[in-house]
């Protein structure tokens, strides 16, 4: 396939695990695929994770080979740092308008040496590490990024151009312009994943206010081998935590968020269960028991939903290792005012019915999954239906779970509802199967 061809069998939107899996399945069937990712690297949430339940294998070991297979598959063209502007369906064909945003580094020249990063004097927030540490204005997004190339955060760049001087292959180009592309595709797979609940919208938990109240994605970063602190430390003062609490269902199974209408993205009344938090918390607890053998770990929960293959066994294993499970809903978290930066959790112990207060030195909010339906707005002449919660609605959930309201548009992964990795992968396979059947019938007719 000529890589700059403009007609594809399928457009896959989103390069998380679901998008990669759909693209690879279709490419392996000899269909030509265009994979569009809005970030500078593919990988989605999974590449940020430490180890993954229930097999506790290292997320990077599983994702990176898949990422490189995706990036170099002869039937896949990958566009990163790219926005989908508009998708119009006409005469059975999708007409797609894209913009490749400039990274100010030429992908084909950059060797990933990071010399530019070393000399860059501008320190900014490292989003990949949930800003628990800084990075430079020119950086490789993270060490396992694919494509592995530097990119400049042009808004924060001070244009000192020190990087230009050290870059041997002359890969850095401050004159790079956005590029507009028009392509056609016979089918579309939406794999745009999910948003994490922004815990600031539960002010009673003090996230964003107390540095030692962190979210679970931050904890996954802290225990990952590519972690920001080289060991598990709490962000307030670098102390080695020894009494960690998990607050499950933070922003899930919850319709009590005040003023939900007024806030946009990242906060909403979220009556559903996020399906992954029980398990990732149990996973993190197990990993922490290994990293900090002396630490006490308590998980405050409503129900433990260890439902998948091997999950109940994984839960039992955590109990056996000494993780403390307490049934109770945390009402409020406050910081002690003795300068210790420790936290006090107030909750009702349901087994005794009594209000209790306990102290922990690090609190992890097991934040939930919210929908991200923004991609549906790019379909301008037909509508991709979403459900009440903003997830892509499956047109026939039981029999054709990947179908959407537009013929030829399919959905994979957490874009249609909360899913863990194994479920996301299976749903991506189903989307590929349905898309392939659809494309095959187009050409047969």
């Amino acid at each position, binding site marked *: 396939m000529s890589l700059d061809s403009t007609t594809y069998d399928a457009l896959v939107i989103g390069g998380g695990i679901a998008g990669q899996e759909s693209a690879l399945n279709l490419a392996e069937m000899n269909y030509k695929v265009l994979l569009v990712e809005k970030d500078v690297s593919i990988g989605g949430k999974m590449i940020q994770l430490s180890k993954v339940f229930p*097999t506790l294998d290292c997320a*990077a070991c599983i994702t990176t080979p898949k990422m490189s297979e995706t990036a170099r598959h002869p039937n896949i063209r990958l566009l990163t740092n790219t926005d989908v502007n508009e998708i119009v369906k006409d005469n059975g064909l999708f007409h797609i308008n894209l913009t490749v945003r400039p990274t100010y580094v030429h992908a084909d020249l950059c060797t990933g040496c990071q010399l530019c990063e070393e000399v860059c004097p501008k320190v900014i927030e490292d989003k990949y590490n949930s800003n628990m540490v800084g990075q430079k204005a020119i950086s490789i997004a993270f*060490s396992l990024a694919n494509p592995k190339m530097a990119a400049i955060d042009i808004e924060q760049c001070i244009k000192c151009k020190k990087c230009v001087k050290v870059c041997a292959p002359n890969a850095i180009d401050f004159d790079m312009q956005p590029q507009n592309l028009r392509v056609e595709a016979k089918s579309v797979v939406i794999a745009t994943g999910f948003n994490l609940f922004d815990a600031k919208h539960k002010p009673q938990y003090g996230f964003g206010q107390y540095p030692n109240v962190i979210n679970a994605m931050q904890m996954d970063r802290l225990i*990952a*081998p590519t972690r920001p602190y080289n060991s598990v430390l709490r962000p307030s003062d670098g102390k080695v935590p020894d009494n960690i609490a998990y607050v499950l269902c933070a922003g899930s199974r919850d319709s009590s968020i005040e003023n939900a209408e007024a806030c946009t993205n990242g906060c909403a009344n979220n009556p559903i269960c996020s399906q992954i938090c029980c398990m990732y918390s149990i996973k993190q607890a197990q990993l922490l028991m290994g990293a900090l053998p002396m630490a006490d770990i308590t998980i405050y929960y409503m129900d433990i939903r260890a439902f998948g293959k091997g999950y109940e066994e994984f839960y039992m294993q955590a109990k056996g290792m000494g993780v403390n499970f307490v049934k109770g809903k945390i009402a409020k978290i406050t910081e002690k005012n003795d300068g210790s930066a420790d936290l006090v959790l107030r909750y009702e112990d349901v087994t005794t019915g009594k209000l209790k207060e306990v102290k922990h030195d690090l609190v992890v909010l097991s934040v939930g999954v919210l929908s991200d339906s923004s991609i549906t707005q790019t379909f301008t002449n037909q509508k991709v239906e979403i459900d009440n919660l903003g997830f892509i609605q499956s047109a026939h959930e039981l029999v054709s779970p990947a179908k959407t309201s537009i013929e030829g548009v399919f959905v994979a992964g957490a874009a249609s509802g909360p899913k863990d990795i194994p479920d996301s992968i299976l749903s991506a396979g189903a989307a590929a199967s349905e898309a392939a059947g659809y494309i095959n019938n187009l050409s047969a007719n």
Partner: protein
Amino acid sequence: MSAENAAPKILVFSTDIISDPGIDQAGLLKLHYSPSVYTISLPCSSGIKPRWIMRAFEKGFDGVFIAADGHECSYSPKCSEYTNKIIEQTQEMMREKNINPKRIRMAALCSVCAESFVSHMGNFSKILAELGSIQSEISVSQ
């Protein structure tokens, strides 16, 4: 000028998909380890032949380190068991030749285990330095 650093020479057997990328990460992060460490990457640690390890000792390597995949191996759930068997078998051969069985070591290493690799190399180098050069046990051909 020839190799003068007396650091123990280590041959590492790594695996293409998991542990070799972990060793790459160490380089990427400029986590330094002994330059007397050489690596051969294979599909699976359970495919290492004892005769290769013996060859390494004959050629002057002071130690052989197997960076296995452990339970992450995508070929066999019994990978660790098989690799262990290979090690036992090799140690048998080593004993016959009066080579200290401590000169062979295994650990599971994942694709981002850069620090852990470096610390393994450090520890193993220390152990090997205590054991002394392989030439004290066998004569080495070049």
